[in-house]
């Protein structure tokens, strides 16, 4: 019988992580995306990183907007709470959740439409607040779920399924984020798990807003020759300049590095991340050189990937707010209510 039922995310046999969990504990329900959709590969990378980092599933909170990409939180870590909210408003919902409970690990999944059109305002301000979360844009240059309109990241000249060419300058989310003072900005490709997994790990370890722009081809509506977001184009043109490696928990990556400089970054949880950048002297701590590097690559029609910028010192939202280290949701009513005596004082002040 011809079955269209797709296999769920492919599995590594049942190794256990530090929590004694297998990778199955990090899976979700079966994907309903198109066979071959880049978003599914990203899901697999997320599952792998969370497993390898031994994140307790209950500490993870998955939040998304609306779109094919925004459906994906259902497909990983079914033991984590998820929130598939409304189009373009994931940043504010994640901000509020984080304000209420800083103990959770927040991963926000969005699409290029969700984040850069309807959600642009909220994205800008979540960056500005440096909300402690991973913010992953599954970037395919189109509106997948509404069937193939150009998004704000569509390249000039790329063609939609109907053949019309895009003529509006795209927004580069990485460039935008760096200009706005984001504290962690990376880019990767859904088809390259070896790069994406360590970037994800670094993003989770980072305290503050970690934006990951993942080029994720839409096989339905944007996999044509004209498109720079297609598998073929990206495979040809992708620049894996700044390789990433997560020291200690993930050694396969470092083994792959054959050339260039290492940038060692100590993250807030004490873990070390080593980044390899091909351009001599690439400084992932300099906004200016990141901008120049990206602009340069774009001018050469290349897509720079890797950890483009990081600032470990930027205070996150809670540091700015000076919130207690305890999650606000865990405060008892007694510690919050000033009581009748205090109200009596208030009464006096209104006389």
């Amino acid at each position, binding site marked *: 019988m011809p079955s269209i039922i797709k296999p769920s995310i492919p599995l590594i046999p049942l190794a256990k992580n530090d929590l004694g969990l297998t990778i199955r504990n990090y899976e979700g329900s079966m994907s309903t995306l198109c066979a071959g959709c880049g978003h599914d590969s990203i899901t697999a990378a997320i599952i792998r990183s969370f497993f390898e980092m031994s994140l307790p599933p209950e500490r993870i909170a998955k939040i998304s907007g609306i779109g094919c990409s925004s459906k994906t939180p259902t497909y990983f870590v079914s033991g984590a709470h998820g929130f598939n909210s409304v189009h373009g408003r994931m940043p*504010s919902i994640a901000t509020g959740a984080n304000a209420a409970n800083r103990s959770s690990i927040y991963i926000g999944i969005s699409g290029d439409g969700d984040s850069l059109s309807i959600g642009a305002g909220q994205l800008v301000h979540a960056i500005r607040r440096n909300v402690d979360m991973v913010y992953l844009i599954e970037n395919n240059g189109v509106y997948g779920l509404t069937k193939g309109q150009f998004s704000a990241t569509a390249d000039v000249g790329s063609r939609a399924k109907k053949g019309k060419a895009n003529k509006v300058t795209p927004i580069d989310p990485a460039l935008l984020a760096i200009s706005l003072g984001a504290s962690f900005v990376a880019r990767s490709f859904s088809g390259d798990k070896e790069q994406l997994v360590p970037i994800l790990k670094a993003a989770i370890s980072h305290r503050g807003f970690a934006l990951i722009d993942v080029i994720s081809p839409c096989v339905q509506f944007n996999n044509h020759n004209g498109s720079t977001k297609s598998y073929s184009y990206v495979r040809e043109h992708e620049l894996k300049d700044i390789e990433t490696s997560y020291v200690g928990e993930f050694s396969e990556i470092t083994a792959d590095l054959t050339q260039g400089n290492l940038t060692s970054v100590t993250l807030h949880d004490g873990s070390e991340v080593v980044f390899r950048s091909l351009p001599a002297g690439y400084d992932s701590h300099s906004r200016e050189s990141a901008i120049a590097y990206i602009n340069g690559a774009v001018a050469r029609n290349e897509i720079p990937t890797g950890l483009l910028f990081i600032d470990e010192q930027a205070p996150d939202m809670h540091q700015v707010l000076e919130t207690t280290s305890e999650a606000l949701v865990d405060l008892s009513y007694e510690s919050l209510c000033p009581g009748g005596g205090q109200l009596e004082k208030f009464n006096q002040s209104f006389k």
Partner: protein
Amino acid sequence: MMASFGNQSTNADWLDSLPLSGLGKVNEFAIKFANVNGTGSASANNLVLKAIFRMGVPVSGKNLFPSNIQGLPTWFEIRVSESGFTARSSSPDIVVAMNPQTYRDDIVSIKPGGALLYDSSWPLSSDFERSDVLNVGVPLSRLCSEKFPDPRQRVLLRNVSYVGAVSGLIDLDYQILSELLNETFHSNPKLQKSNQIALEIGYQYVKESYVTPLPIRLEVRDLNAGKILIDGNTAISLGCVYAGATVAAWYPITPATSVSENFESLCERLRTVELSNPDGTVSNVKNFAVLQAEDEMAALGMVIGASWAGARAFTSTSGPGISLMNELLGLGYYAEIPAVIFDIQRTGPSTGMPTRVQQSDILLSAYASHGDTKHILLFPGNPNECFQFAVKAFDLADHFQTPVIVLSDLDIGMNDWVADEFTWDANYEWDRGRILGQEELSKIAKFQRYSDQDEEYVTSRTLPGKDSKGAFFTRGSGHDQFGNYTESPEDYIKVMERLLNKHKASVNWIPEPIVRIRDKAAIGVITIGSCEPAVLEALDHFEKDGIEMDYLRIRGFPFHQSVKSFIEDHEQTLVVEQNRDAQLRSLLILELGIDPNLLMSVLSYGGFPLTSDDVLTRAKRILKGWDRCPR
């Protein structure tokens, strides 16, 4: 010819010629202060308000200010009423005219037999002459220029001087005023002194130049025992603190701004905890998070996110914000996430008149969002209810896992009302609703978000970050009883019907209406929010005319069946509200299945706080047209 002019004459002649209406108005009158905004007059006017309050006389102040920062006309109206009628008065007995731009209209507005206080440093144009009012000229600017060299200070102190003059004219207790100034400037003896001088100047001048006090005047009473003078927004912010709210997200908008701003300052004081660091230093940590959002959609998004995570969270906004929140209100309703929204209503539509009052977001709030929704609404009518309903809103939102909109308005929110002292029940426990913790989860086989409904159609939820067993997916898309995505009509309908029933069930927790029943009255009157004082005063007038009417004030939605009985028990019911389209009446008709012919509308929606005259004239006009008219 004006009855009196300039600073050398007395007002003895005028006293003799006074029409009866102006005589003997002890503790029953209204003063209007006409100022230019941005000149610091608000604090001077509040001084008068507070002093009257401290004299033990019921009083209210209505600030009629423009949507502007400096240079435009603004009015402050004080209603003094020993009998407790503190609605805005439609015409003042005394006008303190400090704004030459509006002299003409201000003077025209004085009741015959009333008095005008103006700055006689410059002569008053004879165009403005009114023979039926007493013209009290005080050369405030000249007097202040002589005393205070700094021009900036002079502008401010001129305000205090007219307070002094008012004090002399109407027996406003000088001692109390003087104390209030000392309290205000307790940390700055220099300012204390100059303010006292300014007060004195005005006082002395009228004492020396006029026969005082006027027949319109104050006498000390003891009617404010157990009372405070407070605005509704402050009361709401206090309520949020007492309800244990920890997250506020908001976007500035008049007249809602002070709700969140006050909440933040209260928390800064009450919820900042000192921590000694290992290195011996001390740092302050905060048991709250106030987020100034980038807009109203973000504000409600943050509230929904925080509530989903388990905090008590709220936002404050006004009309344009409610419009922008529609989509997220639908999400909160359908995905069953608590959220508390304070809508301090102003005059719409669109930007409308941002500093004017209406109750005109009722229908939109009740059914906010596309698709089928019904929200829980609370309608406070005074600062006491603002405080109580703020707490109640969180209990309701948590209990019924849904957004709750508290519809206050600019009049309650930003004006000072005499209120009962706030009290707190030491036994109060917050109602967090059905939240399953680890213990409860361990007892069940499998957690399913939307299936185990109780008799109120509420299902249990879990909070993120706690237990994998409680994990579920929250979504605004079609879902079945288990929270799974669905496009099945049956599954979808099951959830939607439960939501409808849940809304109905919440009525038992909604504050009962305030009802006052006369014997066998044929006519009932229903109203809402800040309309109450004017409506009660109007009913008093009707009663004096021999027409008794029953009274009901709605305090929440869904409506109690008692509202329906009230309507059915009367031949005719008037619904008094401040909007064009009779929004409360509409909601009553729809939700109680009332025959529209039973409800007649009394609408007054020009944007100023309601007066009893507004109600009386309109109600009389309507009743005249009614065939069973009582008169």
